[in-house]
């Protein structure tokens, strides 16, 4: 229980640190936060076993931390350090870490599930009882790739759990505006798989439902869709002041904060005391202070890194000539004759 609380708090505190780092100008590009959705991510990530794989959306930092991702790697990523898991070549949570079973998404929404299907396929082909887990926003669920991915996973009966994060918004547009779906659970009808709805702000409920779906997948009974009813408490990204969101709506959800709710529950039922939770928070704080200091001391990758690792064979990366700079050893002279320009001058 304390671990769960710690993960929830770590998620929020890490994102708050990132915000500070952002405001100090160290974050390169945008910053995405999961404020209010931590319980969905943590509950799910916590339910997975070693060897399982997970493909997060931008709102699922907590799931990655639950998988054992070092907060430093998150800071490195956002600050484009050469030491980052992507060597500074990509941003947000776009890293793939086989040791932790993390498949990084790419920006075009819906694609990650399709790729995760292949990971799941490999488990089955190798008779491994591992499970794949992924998330999808209500917005992303409208993409063609998301549909193709769900349909293929269902048809091949793959060991997959898909969490549909119904957080009421897709960027600056209310979900009700752009999706006529009545009950998000019903999405599963298009694929012939079971679906369950949970309060995504209740970490224990999420955990239980995720564990059950995972067990189902592990037993070879295929995909489950888990609808997490939750709310995006901040703008789409740091630059989005979220002016379009009605204040009452925000307030209603503020009253159902997943971390505070869980803390209250832990204290009320005697699992923890106020001070033990306070201790968790201060430990996390100290850990993050150190992490931020360390990472900010690291630098950007060296420029030449840009040329590397396009292909497996470094010779191929090196082969492209003439792109830049002086022409290395250009032998553009035809033996025995003058340059063209001169030839003309003579011939003219």
């Amino acid at each position: 229980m304390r671990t769960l609380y710690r993960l929830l708090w770590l998620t929020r505190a890490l994102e708050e640190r990132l915000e500070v780092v952002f405001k100090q100008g160290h974050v390169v590009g945008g910053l995405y936060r999961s404020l209010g959705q931590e319980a969905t991510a943590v509950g799910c990530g916590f339910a997975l076993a070693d060897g399982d794989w997970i493909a997060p959306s931008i709102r699922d930092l907590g799931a990655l931390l639950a998988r054992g991702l070092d907060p430093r790697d998150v800071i490195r990523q956002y600050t484009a350090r050469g030491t980052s898991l992507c060597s500074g070549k990509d941003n947000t949570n776009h890293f793939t870490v086989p040791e932790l079973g993390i498949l990084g998404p790419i920006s075009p929404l819906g694609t990650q599930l399709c790729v995760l299907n292949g990971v799941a396929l490999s488990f089955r082909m190798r008779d491994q009882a591992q499970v794949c887990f992924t998330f999808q926003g209500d917005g992303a669920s409208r993409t063609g790739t998301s549909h193709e991915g769900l349909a293929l996973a269902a048809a091949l009966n793959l060991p997959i759990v898909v969490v549909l994060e119904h957080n009421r918004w897709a960027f600056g547009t209310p979900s009700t505006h752009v999706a006529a779906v009545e009950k998000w659970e019903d999405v599963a009808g298009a694929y012939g798989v079971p679906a369950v709805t949970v309060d995504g702000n209740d970490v224990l409920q999420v955990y239980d439902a995720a564990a059950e779906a995972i067990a189902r997948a592990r037993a070879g009974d295929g995909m489950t869709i888990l609808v997490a009813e939750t709310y995006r408490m901040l703008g789409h990204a740091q630059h989005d002041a979220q002016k379009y969101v009605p204040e009452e709506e925000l307030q209603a959800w503020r009253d159902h904060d997943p971390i505070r709710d869980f803390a209250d529950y832990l204290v009320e039922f005697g699992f923890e005391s106020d001070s033990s939770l306070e201790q968790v928070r201060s430990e996390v704080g100290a850990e993050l202070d150190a992490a931020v200091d360390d990472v900010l001391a690291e630098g950007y990758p060296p420029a030449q890194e840009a040329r590397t690792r396009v292909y497996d064979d470094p010779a191929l990366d090196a082969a492209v000539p003439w792109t830049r700079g002086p022409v290395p050893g250009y032998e553009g002279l035809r033996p025995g004759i003058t340059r063209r320009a001169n030839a003309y001058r003579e011939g003219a």
Partner: protein
Amino acid sequence: MAGTVETTYLGAIREALLEEMRTDESVFLLGEDIGVYGGAFKVTDGFLEEFGPERVIDTPISEAAIVGAAIGAAHMGLKPVAEMQFIDFIAPAFDMIVNFAAKSRYRTGIGAGLVIRGPCGAGARSGPFHSQSVESYFANVAGLKMVIPARAYDAKGLLRAAIRDPDPVLFFEHKFLYRRIKEELPVDEEVIVPLGQARTHREGSDLTLVTYGAMVHKSADAADRIAEEDGSEVEVIDLRTLRPLDTAAIVESVQRTGRLLVVHEAPRFGGFAGEITAQVCEEAFEWLDAPIRRVTAIDTPVPYAPTLEDYYLPGEDDIIEAARWLLAY
């Protein structure tokens, strides 16, 4: 004489949309977050209020469906302008564009006069998926037109022409220029720039430099420095429209200068410079006094870290170096 008003590249695009929507009821917009939110870059801020939800349509996240709906509406005589939130997200609509929109008139006689517009290009530290130049994906696809303005004036004038065009037009806006380019634009005069015409951005007699998009400005800076430091004059041609390509303008310049440098932001291999090179080889080969050279991004995805992205992008120094090499050849 009418006055002028300072307008950004982004503002010019906004005005083109506003003016076309005000004068022609059949023009409408569709895309993600363009209504309630006003567009990821706020190009259409306030449009929903002025034109209502039937003409400023917030769609689900579904680029293929967006382009598809634009094709159908165009078939019926409407003039849809579809926004890709970032031009990178044109990839999921690739099939719809290449197979439905581009081939429609040829196959059936029914055209698809639509515009697909969105922010392209690197330099904004946005990583591999919000920085791409996508023109080469479509270069070999007959039936499409492609536009990429470098100035506010052209952004406005070309977008208006694109909306009126009876064929499908891909309209690439360079996001790095959105707020960095500011020009005095005429207030009362109709700004329309016909598709298919290149523009001499800077005159010169010693070397022809053909480019487009954000590279027009880097190239012009490079040309200025060369003029100052070496006394040579580089002619900078801004293509503005990539398809149809204004081959005549390129050839005319090369016939005067005898030397050609092509600069673009997309990677080198398979980039647009190849087509330009081939056309010049075919039509002005005998006028060439030196090899045709290309300065482009390196052949990799667009990296994220500032050090890497700066290395990735063709820089002023790269252009100067290549130009000097050609001038000295």
